[in-house]
């Protein structure tokens, strides 16, 4: 693609060349619809080939159909310059030193109104310009480890991240923040919970549900909450810090192995499942809501076990699932399968022979529940016992995604299935709890009078 014509293809590209104009040209256009003046903007790659986009002097963008354009005259040329001015992040003696790792999600960004581009801000100086409150909380250094979308995070990134955290801890950092896209934040959180053990400092993951280029974004407040947690809390665990309610009120600190994104777009999408969160956080204060978390220490004795077996699958059972779903995994050499089964942890009978074949092939098969809340109970019905005899191991109340991550991590360490089982069923970071608290399952039903009363009284 010719850089002078960013994104333009086909007829429109021909037209631009014909009139000797390019992206960022200031132009007068004559068309069968009338006269238009503005700056030619780049065209998004996925948009059609039959329109030209210009920015009017009023700041609005419009598109013009190529076929209607009779003439274009260039009046000037102004190339947009993407740069974020930096202000030096102030250093204050006595404030905790934090490290922010970037993985690709935008924590803060700047808008280029002329072009409409959103430019991520990441360096301490850039972040200080966007979220100056950070300087009241900590001394900050940053490192961009990768630039990938949340859905493209995987074992390779988990391992790099875990090692980088280990290094920082050894160097004496007081807390770590990880900026992450929200879609798979809970996968990464559980991976880090297993790979980084016995951390003496908080490791807080954070993201935003509304992009940071908008005034109502949750990004800045989430970042402030995460920095506060990493700086002053004594929660030396891998946690996820995101909005509690959708209102700008407080954040919740969720344990990395019990948190899950439960809504596609709400600010309050992250919830602790089958348990209660560790703490709430406001701008300058962290309030624990339980005491059984691992406490901050001054030593640097962190254990990093960064490994992952990639041939692991998580399958979501549905009625009439065919046995070849399992067989194909066996054939392709998968070493572990986590099933999200129905109810207490079930699949249909036709799958049993396939499960037996998996056992024979030495594939580790673990059962979790697609209800998300509650334990797997395979003793309640005969069917459950049948499955266990075919090698399926109940994974207690591990969330399906967490069991998937843990199985990959366990198989990454050993291929001895007994040892794997030992690792899988020994709670390491709260992924399996002994008891399910009565308030660990609360999904309020809207419409019911007492719930409506609650909604009216407290900010959503």
């Amino acid at each position: 693609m010719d850089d002078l014509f960013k994104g333009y293809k086909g007829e429109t590209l021909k037209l631009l060349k014909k009139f000797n104009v390019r992206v960022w040209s200031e132009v007068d256009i004559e068309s069968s619809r009338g006269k238009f003046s503005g700056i030619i903007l780049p065209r998004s790659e996925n948009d059609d080939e039959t329109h030209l986009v210009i920015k009017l002097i009023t700041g609005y963008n419009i598109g013009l159909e190529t076929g209607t354009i009779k003439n274009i005259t260039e009046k000037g040329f102004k190339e947009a310059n993407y740069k974020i001015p930096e202000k030096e992040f102030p250093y204050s003696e006595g404030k905790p030193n934090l490290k922010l790792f970037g993985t690709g999600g935008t924590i803060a960004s700047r808008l280029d109104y002329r072009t409409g581009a959103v430019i991520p801000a990441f360096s301490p100086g850039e972040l200080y310009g966007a979220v100056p409150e950070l300087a009241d909380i900590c001394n900050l250094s940053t490192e961009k480890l990768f630039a990938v979308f949340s859905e493209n995070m995987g074992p390779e990134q988990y391992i790099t991240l875990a090692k980088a955290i280990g290094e920082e801890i050894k160097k004496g950092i007081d807390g770590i923040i990880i900026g992450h896209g929200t879609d798979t934040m809970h996968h990464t959180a559980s991976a880090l919970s297993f790979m980084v053990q016995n951390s003496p400092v908080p490791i807080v993951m954070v993201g935003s549900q509304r992009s940071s280029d908008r005034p109502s974004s949750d990004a800045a407040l989430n970042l402030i909450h995460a920095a506060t947690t990493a700086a002053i809390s004594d929660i030396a665990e891998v946690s996820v810090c995101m909005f509690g309610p959708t209102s700008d009120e407080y954040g919740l600190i969720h344990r990395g192995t019990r948190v899950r994104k439960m809504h596609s777009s709400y600010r309050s999408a992250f919830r602790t499942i089958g348990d209660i969160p560790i703490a709430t956080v406001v701008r300058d204060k962290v309030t624990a809501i339980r005491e059984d978390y691992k406490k901050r220490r001054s030593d640097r004795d962190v254990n990093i076990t960064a490994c992952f077996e990639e041939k692991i699958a998580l399958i979501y059972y549905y009625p009439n699932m065919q046995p070849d779903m399992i067989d194909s995994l066996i054939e392709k050499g998968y070493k572990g399968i986590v099933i999200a089964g129905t109810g207490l942890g079930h699949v249909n009978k036709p799958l049993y022979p396939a499960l037996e074949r998996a056992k024979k092939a030495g594939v580790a098969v673990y059962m979790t529940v697609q209800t998300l809340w509650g334990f797997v109970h395979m003793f309640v019905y005969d069917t459950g016992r049948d499955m266990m005899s075919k090698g399926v191991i109940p994974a207690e109340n591990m969330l399906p995604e967490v069991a998937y991550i843990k199985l990959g991590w366990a198989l990454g360490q050993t291929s001895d299935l007994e040892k794997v089982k030992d690792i899988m069923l020994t709670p390491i970071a709260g992924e399996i709890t002994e008891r399910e608290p009565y308030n660990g399952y609360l999904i309020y039903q809207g419409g019911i009078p007492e719930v409506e009363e609650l909604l009216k009284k407290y900010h959503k």
Partner: protein
Amino acid sequence: MYKRINGKENTEISKKKIGFVNINEATPEIYEKLGFKCGLEVHQQLLTKSKLFCRCPAGKYQKGDDFEAEVIRHMRPTLSELGEYDGTALMEFKTRKNITYRLKNENACTYEIDDTPPFPLNREALGISIEIALLLKTSIVGELHITRKQYLDGSIPTGFQRTAIVGIEGEIPISNKKIRIIQLSIEEDSCREISDIGHERIYSTDRLGIPLIETVTYPDMKTPAEAAEAGQYIRFLTRSTGKVRTGIGAAREDVNVSIRGGTRIEIKGVSRIKWIPSLTHVEAFRQKALLEIKKILKERKKNGPEWDIRTTPVDNTILVKAGLPIKNGYKASGIRLPGFRTILSFFTQPGKTFSDELSERIKVIACIDKPNLVHDEDPSLNDYDGVFKEIYTKTGGEDKDAFLIVFGPAGDIAMAEETIQERCRLAFSGVPNETRKAVNREGKTIFERVLPGPDRMYPDTDSAPIAINDNYIKELGNDLPSDVHDREKIMKTWKIPEDTFPYIHVRNIFPVIKKISEELSYSPSFVGTMVGHRIKNIDGKNAISSGFDYLRLFDIFEYCEKKGLDNELVKLMVPVLLMHPNIDPESILSTIKFKKRDKKDIISNIHLLDKQFNTISKKNDNSAKKRWIMGQLRPIAVGNISLRELSDIINGGGNG
């Protein structure tokens, strides 16, 4: 030596100095001399079933205290390309407002609270907006690009309004010239403000997201009257489609005013066109006053970093003793404004002086509700001499200086001081950029926000562009209503009284009159007069069911024609229909107790009544008798015989 001045006298002197006249005394020459210029931004809600970017029903409102849940948010400025915050953005951020949104399930979903991305744009709304863009003779864009326009006041929970240009460069006619149109855009309506007290602002989300169009004119209007005329024309034009919302708040104007040497000031939220002349008139003179102040200040002092306010704490107890509303936790600060003597009481608007410019900004920016300051040129003050003298001394006052005391919650005073400093510095350069809010019909306005620049626009990454092809435009163009001025010409040939035109436009009854007069035997002047006078009168008493479809009038006329009922009966039937739009003609007749009678029957009564009158009245007054007979027969005659015919028969002695 500290000496107070007579503020009242000074206000009058300054008012004369700038040449202020009342609007009814103002001639076009006065505006020409001022260099008056005015442009309009006319907002009009579209009549669609649902909102613009979600599937919530549009047009359902509730009272401010009727809500089911609340969400609280804060608006944070985003970095602009210079790495600096936009002027408005910065100010709104400084205000540290808690914004509460009130929700009700029936008209708001997760889109309204910005917890879900937009759904595809409402096509019904797009169609209507293109129709209006065609009526405005604008060039329609080839592709609609949804753009985000930042607002940090919280009126839109996302912090930006989704808006898109439909057409640019059009024109409308007014009586003496053409007014050019800059653009027509389609956008989502904002929240309704419920209250704004201190740091708490509350909005209702019922109005949020209703499809809205904004028509922007060039500043081609050179007098307040022209501005109102253009506003009225655009209103009639949008109404002529029959596809726009009516009622309170459905149409709102922002009025841009400037004078020579002044600044474009946007007066927001003018819901009545009637207010436009006085608002623009008063604003023109406010700008004139600020330019005069600039001149005075420049002679006295230099602006720049060396110009600075001086402050000194003032003891609350003295202020309490003087009767000021000093609450617990309040702090007061005495301030010296170097070189500002006579400025604080300088006339700016009828009933207002320059001190209001400060006080209103303090309310908005520092969130201190009024009253928030007193100054020593306020004629109503008596007991502060001692206090001001002390401020004079402590701040090193001089003769040409002004003194004031600002008071409010302790945490907000620093911002108030900064606001005063900023506004006073701006006085050296004349009329500061800002938006103002219309207050009343006399033209009073108050400070609303710093006027945002064009830098607040950026593309909506959540929506794809929408192509508008020629066939679609052609299709919409086939269905356009006739031009407002053409309609007036036709109505003149129909001999409909001109005073009925505005009402006929506003309610878009022209097509109804046309249909009745073309398809039935009624004359357009009869129908037009009845609509423009009788129905307008009923409308004025709010006796018309909301959302009434005026095409229903056709049914009544058609029914009466078929049944051979008289015109007078139509006049009686229409008010019932207006109240009960779903009623059928038969039921209307029974409501008004009409009975069909034979003409002969009615006439036959004349003889009997004649005799009866003679027994009642001893006087032999023939005309009284005729009037009495007419009165007696009227109730049964209406609809059965024309009253004129009956009267002729009675006058002719009758034939009973």
